[in-house]
C-alpha cells in the first residue's frame, strides 16, 4: 500500500514537472498558433542560468528565484527578435526557424559554459526525507517539486480563468483580430504570454537539474514528451495539459514500476526483464495513439 503511494507520488512529481514545460508550449501553440520547437532550449537555459546564479549567490533558493526573471527576459528577447516574425508564417517556416534556435542555443551554451555538463546540488535543507505518512519516507526535494509545481498550476489556473490578462489571452485565442480591433495591444499580450511560457520552462529546467544534471540538449528529449502531453490534452488547453501531464507521469511510473511484474505472470522472468524496458518506453506513445483515435483533438481540445 505504502509502495503504491510512493510510486503514485513519483508519478505526480514527474507529471507536475512535465506540466510546467507543457503549459508554456500549449499556450504558444494554441493561443499564438506558433509551433515552438525551441521550448526545450528555454528549459535548458533556465537550468544553466540557475547554475550560474546559484554559484554567485551561494544559495539554491536565491539563485533559483533570480533565474526566473532572467528566463522571462530571455523569453521576451527571443520573442521580439525571432518569434514575432513567425506569427504570420505557416507552421513549416516556424518549425525550421525554431529548430535553428535549438542549434543556436546548444552552441551558445557550449561557448559560454563549455561542453561538459554541470551539476546542481540539492539544497542542504531539502537533502533529507520527509515522512508523508508515519513510517513512509519520501525525498524532501521531490516533495518540494510537488509543492511548487502544484502552486504554479493553481496560480496559472487563476491567472487564465480569473484575471483580466487571462481573459485577454482566452479572447486572443479565439479571435486575434477582433481583440486587436477593440484596442487591445495584442503584440504586447503575445510577448507576455511567451515570456510566461519561458519562465515555466525555465522553472521546470532548474527544478529538474538536481535530479538529472545540467547538460547541452537536456531539453530536446523532454520536449518530445511535452508535445505528446499537449496533443493528448488538446492543443491550447491548460486544463488538458495538466490532466495529460498527470496521466503521462503515472503511465511512466507504471511502465517502470509495475510492468515487469505484470509481464512475469505470463512470460519467463528473463523475457519479462528484457521486454519491459522496451514496452515501458513506447507505452506513452501507445496511449497517445489511443486517445487520438478516440478524440482526434485531444481530451480537452476544441472540436472543429
Amino acid at each position: 500500500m505504502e509502495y503504491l503511494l510512493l510510486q503514485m507520488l513519483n508519478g505526480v512529481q514527474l507529471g507536475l514537472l512535465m506540466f510546467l514545460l507543457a503549459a508554456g508550449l500549449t499556450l504558444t501553440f494554441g493561443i499564438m498558433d506558433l509551433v515552438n520547437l525551441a521550448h526545450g532550449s528555454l528549459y535548458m537555459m533556465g537550468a544553466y542560468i540557475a547554475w550560474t546564479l546559484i554559484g554567485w549567490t551561494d544559495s539554491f533558493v536565491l539563485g533559483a528565484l533570480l533565474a526566473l526573471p532572467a528566463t522571462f527576459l530571455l523569453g521576451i528577447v527571443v520573442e521580439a527578435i525571432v518569434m514575432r516574425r513567425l506569427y504570420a508564417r505557416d507552421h513549416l517556416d516556424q518549425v525550421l526557424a525554431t529548430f535553428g534556435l535549438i542549434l543556436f542555443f546548444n552552441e551558445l551554451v557550449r561557448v559560454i559554459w563549455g561542453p561538459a555538463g554541470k551539476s546542481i546540488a540539492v539544497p542542504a535543507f531539502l537533502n533529507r526525507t520527509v515522512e508523508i505518512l508515519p513510517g513512509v519516507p519520501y525525498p524532501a526535494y521531490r516533495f518540494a517539486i510537488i509543492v511548487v509545481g502544484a502552486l504554479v498550476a493553481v496560480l496559472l489556473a487563476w491567472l487564465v480563468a480569473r484575471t483580466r490578462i487571462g481573459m485577454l489571452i482566452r479572447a486572443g485565442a479565439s479571435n486575434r483580430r477582433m481583440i486587436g480591433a477593440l484596442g487591445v495591444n495584442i503584440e504586447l499580450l503575445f510577448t507576455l504570454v511567451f515570456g510566461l511560457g519561458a519562465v515555466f520552462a525555465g522553472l521546470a529546467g532548474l527544478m529538474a537539474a538536481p535530479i538529472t544534471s545540467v547538460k547541452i540538449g537536456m531539453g530536446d528529449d523532454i520536449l518530445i514528451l511535452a508535445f505528446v502531453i499537449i496533443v493528448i490534452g488538446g492543443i491550447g488547453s491548460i486544463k488538458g495539459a495538466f490532466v495529460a501531464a498527470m496521466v503521462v507521469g503515472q503511465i511512466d511510473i507504471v511502465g517502470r514500476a509495475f510492468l515487469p511484474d505484470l509481464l512475469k505472470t505470463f512470460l519467463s522472468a528473463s523475457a519479462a526483464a528484457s521486454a519491459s524496458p522496451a514496452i515501458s518506453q513506447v507505452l506513452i506513445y501507445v496511449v497517445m495513439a489511443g486517445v487520438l483515435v478516440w478524440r482526434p483533438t485531444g481530451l480537452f481540445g476544441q472540436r472543429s
Partner: protein
Amino acid sequence: MKTRLFGTTTIAAALALAAPALAQTPIKIGFISTFSGSQAAIGEDMRRSVELAKEHLGGKMGGKPFEIIYEDDQFKPDVGKQKSEKLVQQDKVNFVAGYIWSNVLLASLKTVTDEGDTILISSNAGPSQIAGALCNKNFFSTSWQNDQTPMAMGQYLQEKGVKSLYLMAGNYAAGKDMLAGVKRTFKGKIVGEDLTKWPDQLDFSAELAKIRAAKPDGIFIFYPGAHGVQFLQQYVQAGLKGQVPLYQVFSIDAITLPQQKELALGTLGAQEWVNDLPSEQNKKYVADFKKKHGVYPSFYGAQSYDSIMLIASAAEALKGDLSNKDKVRAEMKKANFKSLRGGFKYNTNQFPIQNFYIQEAVKDPQGMMTLKTIATAVKDGKDPYYEKCPMK
C-alpha cells in the same frame, strides 16, 4: 667531430629527400572518447592520461615521433562510427584507441578492424560479443570484458554471505553484460532487476521505491559517470543509505567522487586497477597525474595510458617500422610492457588475463575522496567468453 656530424646530417638530409614519406611520417594514433556533454569528464581524464603517456615516452616510440588525433563520439554510437571512419580513411591512422562505451565500440568495430584493416585498442569498453564470436585479430583490449568486474564483485558478496541482491543497470550492451556477470558468481537470491532507459533516464525514483519495498540485503549497480553521481544522490535522498548497502561497478571512481563526496564513503566496488596498486610505474603515473592536475586519475585514464604503452612496446620491438601488420599484432599480443596494474598476459581473444580487486571509497590524509584496495577478489581472471572465440 664537427665534420662527422656534418656528414651524418648530409646523409640524413639526402635520405630524407629520397624517401620523405618514410622518414617524416610520424606514427598516428586516433583516440575516440566522449569530450562533450554530461560524460565529458571521462574523456578529459583519458586525454590527460594519454598526454602523460606521451610525455613519459618523450614523444617518441621506436625512435619515431607520434601524434594523437582526438575525436569526440558525443556519447552516440552513430557519431562514434563516423569519427572512426574519418580516422581510418581520411587520417589514415596506424591505430585507433579509446572507446568508453560498449555500444559505441560495437557500432565502430567493423569500420576499423575489417573495412580499415586497422588495429583497435579498446581502452575501456569490453562487450561480450567481441570477446566471443566477434573476436578479431585487429582487436586488443587494455581493459576487461564487461562481465569480469561484476563477476569479481559477485564473488566477493557471495563469500561475504550476502543473501539477496537488487540489480540495476543502464539498458544497453554493457549494462546487460554487467548484470549477466554478477549473476554468474553471486548465487544468492536476486529479488529484483531493472534495466533503465539509457542514457536518457537519470531519475531513479520509481526504481528506488521498488527497492525499498523489496528489502534486499544489498543493491548492485552499474551506472558510469554522470549517471553514478545522480544515482548515489537519489539513493541517499531516498533514505536508503544505512538501510540497504550499495555495491557498485564503474559507478564510483575518481571522475565521480569529486561530486559524490562524502555520500560515497564506505561504498565497496570492484576494479582491475586502483590508484594505490604497488607497481613502480603506477606510483609514478599517479604522482605525476596528481601533480599536474590536482586530482586522482581514474581507471579510464590508467587503461588509456596502458593503451599507448602497449602500442609503444610494439613500436619499440619493431624499431618504429609498422608496415608489417602481422608483426605488429604478434608484438602486441606479447603484452611486453609495464602495465600500471602490474603486468598482464593476453588470452586467445586478446583480452587481458588479470586480477580484480575490491576497493572502498575513503578519504586520503589530505581529506580528498579516493579509492583504497581492501582485498583481491579474483586472481588471473579470464573472461567467460574466450572459448567461443575462433582465434587460438
